[in-house]
């Protein structure tokens, strides 16, 4: 499925995905779909823009995703709405799955999800009976310790209703950053080579050993979220990390439990940072390598629906920067493994020949057609790529059958308690991107939203604490605290708070927990316990925020003589 098809779905189940803030151009398709009569079911604890225009808003309690998904599956089966023919012909493991979902009646799920049983029934019926039905999910699914289970749970819904392999159906993760899909495609993953080829499969390893001319490790590598632990607490000497080559990332801002990340970067023997702007990680780097930015170099990105598209040079870099690929090639050459490429196309050609799913996606085709959705296996101009991954219900498994996979719900790791009675979930700010070294340096985007950001709280909670819009508040968790502005809104439930993660002063990752999903190793950004405190002396707080901002900007090499606007 692709982004343009969203608007032609009969039903959209939008799960933990807030397109309006993370991808306005995807949200546009949802809005257009609504205009065309698409039924929208939105599962989100907040009233998001999609929830606002939805037919059914499943305003579930944070952290109850799987209970809801299993309950929907339960209704679909028990009310005879499942596509038995599709299940028989294209899937396996359905009976085992049934055993798991048996107990998840809507009545069982109601106290867990805080959604009335009847509403769950209604949603399940609409999803199962309106064709074609599409599922979009986002970080509201992925950033929990029970992430992969929910993704599989959503896939179960699509499988049991036969919503796979055609236009405007299936299940789509909407990737956050411009090239998350691309970094995965290219094998920047501890368990796979480019093109999702597993490092533990001997034949595949041999292919890459032959192509690259060296023996390769058969051990799955370290996931990025394990790094602080592997630097600070690893007992086994062989596994301890001593050098960290950070390329285009800012773990000292974006990773959970920042205090631990800072300690790790400080203790790590050798930290290399390769980036375009100074950032928090740079304060701990032993070496800084300046790279050219988007707009100053050539290349290819992969967008959320697997489309390879060209990025082109707009202006010449002003300064002594080099393209990322060139810096890496130079280091490799200096270390005795020569890499000689004239341009990005040469690298690309080497890569596609090693990846069967990408082999046909040549620069020529991407130029000519404006983009190519992989898999694209053949170099002839006739193979224009693949809009639908599991076309006609044929899946990428050995017997071409999809596997049902059922698991039980379990609650989030850190629950509300007396000391920290509220919950914190981290979300996105529409005008800012990632750690904001790019958007924060754009004049007008900075004007729209700036430090110290906002904490979204229910109006009643604010009234209880006598908090007004724009007032500075302190927000604390077991791990740390930060200062931010209060934004009373009826779009969030009482007891819940939401913060966006790109601020330095309102840095919500001071609060978040580093507990991970056991399979995807994604942190539970969407749930931790917190407490909000009123600050009596607002004048002091405003001054304090301003001073903090100036301090950090000065650290980042900005002349703050003219004073920052906080």
């Amino acid at each position: 499925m692709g982004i343009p098809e969203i608007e032609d779905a009969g039903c959209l189940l939008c799960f933990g995905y807030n397109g309006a803030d993370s991808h306005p151009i995807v949200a546009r398709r949802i809005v257009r779909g609504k205009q065309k009569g698409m039924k929208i079911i939105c599962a989100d604890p907040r009233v998001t823009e999609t929830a606002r225009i939805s037919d059914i808003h499943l305003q579930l309690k944070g952290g109850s995703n799987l209970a809801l998904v299993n309950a929907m599956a339960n209704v679909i089966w028990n009310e005879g709405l499942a596509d038995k023919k599709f299940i028989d012909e294209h899937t396996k493991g359905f009976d085992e799955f049934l055993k798991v979902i048996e107990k998840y009646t809507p009545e069982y799920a109601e106290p867990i999800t805080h959604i009335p049983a009847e509403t769950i029934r209604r949603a399940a019926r609409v999803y199962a009976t309106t064709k074609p039905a599409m599922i979009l999910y986002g970080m509201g699914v992925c950033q929990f310790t029970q992430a992969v289970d929910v993704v599989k749970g959503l896939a179960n819904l699509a499988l049991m209703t036969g919503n796979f392999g055609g236009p405007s159906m299936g299940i789509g993760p909407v990737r956050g950053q411009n090239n998350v899909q691309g970094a995965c495609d290219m094998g920047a993953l501890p368990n796979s080579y480019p093109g999702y080829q597993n490092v533990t499969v001997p034949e595949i390893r041999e292919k890459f050993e032959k192509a690259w001319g060296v023996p390769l490790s058969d051990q799955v590598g370290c996931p990025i979220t394990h790094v602080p632990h592997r630097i600070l607490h690893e007992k086994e000497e062989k596994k301890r990390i001593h050098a960290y080559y950070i390329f285009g990332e800012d773990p000292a801002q974006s990773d959970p439990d920042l205090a631990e990340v800072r300690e790790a970067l400080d203790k790590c023997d050798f930290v290399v940072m390769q980036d375009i702007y100074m950032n928090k990680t740079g304060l701990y780097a032993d070496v800084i390598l300046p790279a050219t930015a988007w707009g100053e170099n050539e290349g290819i990105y992969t967008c959320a629906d697997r489309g390879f598209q060209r990025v082109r040079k707009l202006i010449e870099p002003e300064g002594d920067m080099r393209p990322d690929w060139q810096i890496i090639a130079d280091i490799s050459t200096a270390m005795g493994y020569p890499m000689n490429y004239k341009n990005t196309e040469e690298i690309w050609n080497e890569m596609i020949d090693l990846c069967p799913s990408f082999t046909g996606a040549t620069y020529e085709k991407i130029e000519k057609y404006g983009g190519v959705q992989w898999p694209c296996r053949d170099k002839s101009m006739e193979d224009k790529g693949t809009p639908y991954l599991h076309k006609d219900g044929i899946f990428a498994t050995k017997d071409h059958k999809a596997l049902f996979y059922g698991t039980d719900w379990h609650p989030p790791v850190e629950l509300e308690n007396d000391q920290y009675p509220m919950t914190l979930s981290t979300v996105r700010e529409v005008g800012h991107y990632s750690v904001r070294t790019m958007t924060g340096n754009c004049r007008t985007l900075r004007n729209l939203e700036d430090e110290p950001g906002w904490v979204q709280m229910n109006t009643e909670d604010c009234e209880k604490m006598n908090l007004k819009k724009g007032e500075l508040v302190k927000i604390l968790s077991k791990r740390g605290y930060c200062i931010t502005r209060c934004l009373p809104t009826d779009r969030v439930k009482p007891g819940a708070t939401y913060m966006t993660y790109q601020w330095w002063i309102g840095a919500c990752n001071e609060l978040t927990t580093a507990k991970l999903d056991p399979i995807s190793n994604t942190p539970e950004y969407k749930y931790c316990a917190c407490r909000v405190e009123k600050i009596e002396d607002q004048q002091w707080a405003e001054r304090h925020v301003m001073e903090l901002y100036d301090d950090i900007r000065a650290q980042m090499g900005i002349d703050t003589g003219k004073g920052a606007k906080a």
Partner: protein
Amino acid sequence: MKKEIGSFVVGDSTKCTGCKACELACFTVHNRKSNHLGKTVGTVTVPVTPRLFLTKFEQGCMPIQCKHCEDAPCLNACTKGAISRIDHQVIVDAEKCIGCKDCMQACPFGAIALLPYARDGRLVGQAMSSEPKVFASKCDLCEGIEGGPACVRVCPHQALRLVDPEAEREEKNIRAAEALLLTKNWR
């Protein structure tokens, strides 16, 4: 980060009956401290000098007072520096004022009056003249007086309102947006 602007009091001619309770209250609260104003009739020794003006016109009446303009003509006109912005409000320093009347001419609302200056219950005189010292008097939103503007508090018909312009604007925005929901079929 918040765009802060000055508040002001505004009258409503549809409710005002012209009873002048506002004027009297204004005078009273402003003179309680410096002029030891008594609480009973007959103890007032200084002229009754309110800072808002009950104004009659062809169709009715209403009090007129300072708007605390954001590019205040009175402030800009004052060469003596007697008018300044304190906490977003436009405030006259009576001690500094020399009574040049430039501010009165600059104000498009007629919200300023030249009034005798009294201290400790007595009019203040001046050298080389038998006339008492005067000053440009205008609404100061009852700065430092508990309970906020006295005129608003005493009006028996609720014809006066203290406006927090930005907060009211946001509320009106919301009402306008809600109205859009009703009119969306305009095409």
